[in-house]
């Protein structure tokens, strides 16, 4: 039987204003976890009962460490940020389907927006071939060094122009004439929608990691649906169970 685990926090640092990286000693899942999957974090902060879905950012099988990177946006993530090294936190996972890495793909384009960047680190680590990473942030970029370390060419855009190009990922998309076998992306919905359009227009396959408010995280409550289509048939898929990664052409974007 699968189960939740109480895992030990071995690191919890603010890597950028309001953005934390947490390392969890989580040997039960490092073998099976895949890039693009997520975990449910149960913080049980005051009055809070639902788990927080957070993507896996890195997996270290040698050290049995799972790394997640999260933005403090509300009470759950605030509670997480206040936890100390040595504290234990309840976690369930890995959940969902990760990115699909086709064996034959050689040229990879990886696009992340803001807090969508973290899950792409493990992905890049596993990709083989040419990897171009495009990252957009409001201001302070994160994880640039990690992406470089794993052999990717990294392009950065910031909305305030403080680092890299001034603008967002869509601006880079417009300018560059990207060619690749596969696009992998995670970030705000408008960005993903633009990527989907770009991918279709340029005949490139794209995978998008979707976000939705969740309750169970395992496919039982039908809370986290994403409208998808198969040929002409429209169908509600579950972001937690059937996703969070979908092929962009599957997703019905009009909303």
């Amino acid at each position: 039987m699968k189960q939740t685990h109480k895992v030990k926090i071995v690191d919890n640092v603010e890597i950028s204003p309001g953005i934390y990286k947490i390392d969890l000693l989580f040997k039960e899942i490092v073998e099976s976890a895949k890039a693009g999957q997520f975990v449910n974090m149960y913080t049980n902060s005051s009055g809070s009962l639902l788990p927080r879905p957070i993507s896996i950012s890195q997996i270290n099988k040698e050290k049995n460490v799972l790394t997640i990177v999260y933005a403090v946006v509300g009470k759950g993530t605030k509670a997480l940020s206040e936890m100390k090294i040595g504290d234990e936190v309840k976690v369930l996972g890995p959940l969902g389907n990760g990115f699909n890495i086709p064996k034959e793909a050689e040229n990879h384009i990886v696009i992340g927006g803001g807090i969508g960047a973290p899950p792409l680190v493990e992905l890049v680590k596993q990709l083989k071939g040419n990897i171009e990473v495009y990252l957009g942030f409001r201001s302070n970029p994160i994880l640039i060094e990690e992406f470089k370390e794993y052999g990717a060419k990294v392009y950065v855009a910031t909305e305030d122009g403080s680092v890299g190009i001034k603008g967002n990922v869509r601006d880079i998309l417009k300018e560059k004439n990207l060619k690749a076998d596969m696009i992998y992306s995670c970030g705000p919905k408008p960005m993903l929608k633009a990527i989907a359009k770009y991918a279709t227009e340029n005949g490139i396959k794209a995978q998008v990691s979707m976000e939705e408010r969740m309750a169970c995280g395992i496919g039982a409550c039908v809370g986290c649906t994403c409208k998808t289509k198969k040929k002409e048939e429209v169908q509600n898929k579950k972001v937690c169970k059937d996703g969070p990664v979908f092929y962009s052409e599957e997703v019905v974007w009009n909303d």
Partner: protein
Amino acid sequence: MTNPNIKVNIAEVELKNPVMTASGTFGSGREYGEYVDLNKLGAVVVKGVAKEPWDGNPTPRIAETYGGMLNSVGLQNPGVDEFIEKDIPFLRQFDTKIIVNIAGKSIEDYCEVAKKLIKADIDLIELNISCPNVKAGGVNFGTDPAMVEEVTKAVKKVAKQPLIVKLTPNVTDIVAIAKAAVRGGADALSLINTLLGMAIDIHKRKPILANTVGGLSGPAIKPVALRMVYQVANAVDVPIIGMGGIANGEDAVEFILAGASAVAVGTANFNNPTATIDVIDEVKEYMDKYNVENLDDIRGKLL
């Protein structure tokens, strides 16, 4: 630990223990089946099924609130045919009872589902006349005694399996509604469904739920649920399945003391995937501690 008798009987169907899953929180058992041994559950109550597939409401469908959550799933379901074909064979692999929660927008809808279930290998039907997320009809059925009686009577007539009627708490007088369901022929009652609620994202200045309002569940509603179970248990003679915020054995015992024959665990599964099993174990521990050999010895027995 001794082995207290926790079997319960709901309309001639014997459950090995009083703990079931609350409809809509447990799918058809497939997903949580990876976390809990379904053989251990008193019954699996499946997500509401309608006569044909429903899309449900737009997302976001989930909002967290203090001590609870709102959902506006809107009874998305694949329809009774697909349910019969795929989920019943899956569930029948396990030694547990199957309770099918049925949804509809009209009396005819409900009856049609019940008819399609006549040949299905299931144990009980739970008539959901109480979902606040379906504008077309549900809410009206559940809040008016005459309608409750009528729809119960109609479904009872065509249904083969014993009929549980699930009540909405969004009413002035739950006892009047409960009595109407019993008059209509309900073999048992489930209560409560969710309280109608709302949450607002003050930064976006929008309701969090795309549907604006949704159903409140979880520990926050437990006092209301317990009060209604208590009131109804003292007013009708059919078994009651109590639910609303049950997260552990102590909660379950409260409902049983208030008069519930069985209990269902809903929202708690989201916080703790093994909540159902924990509740069973903890009820037994309580019985052990107080030397209660038989659940009947405490059911409705407030001192």
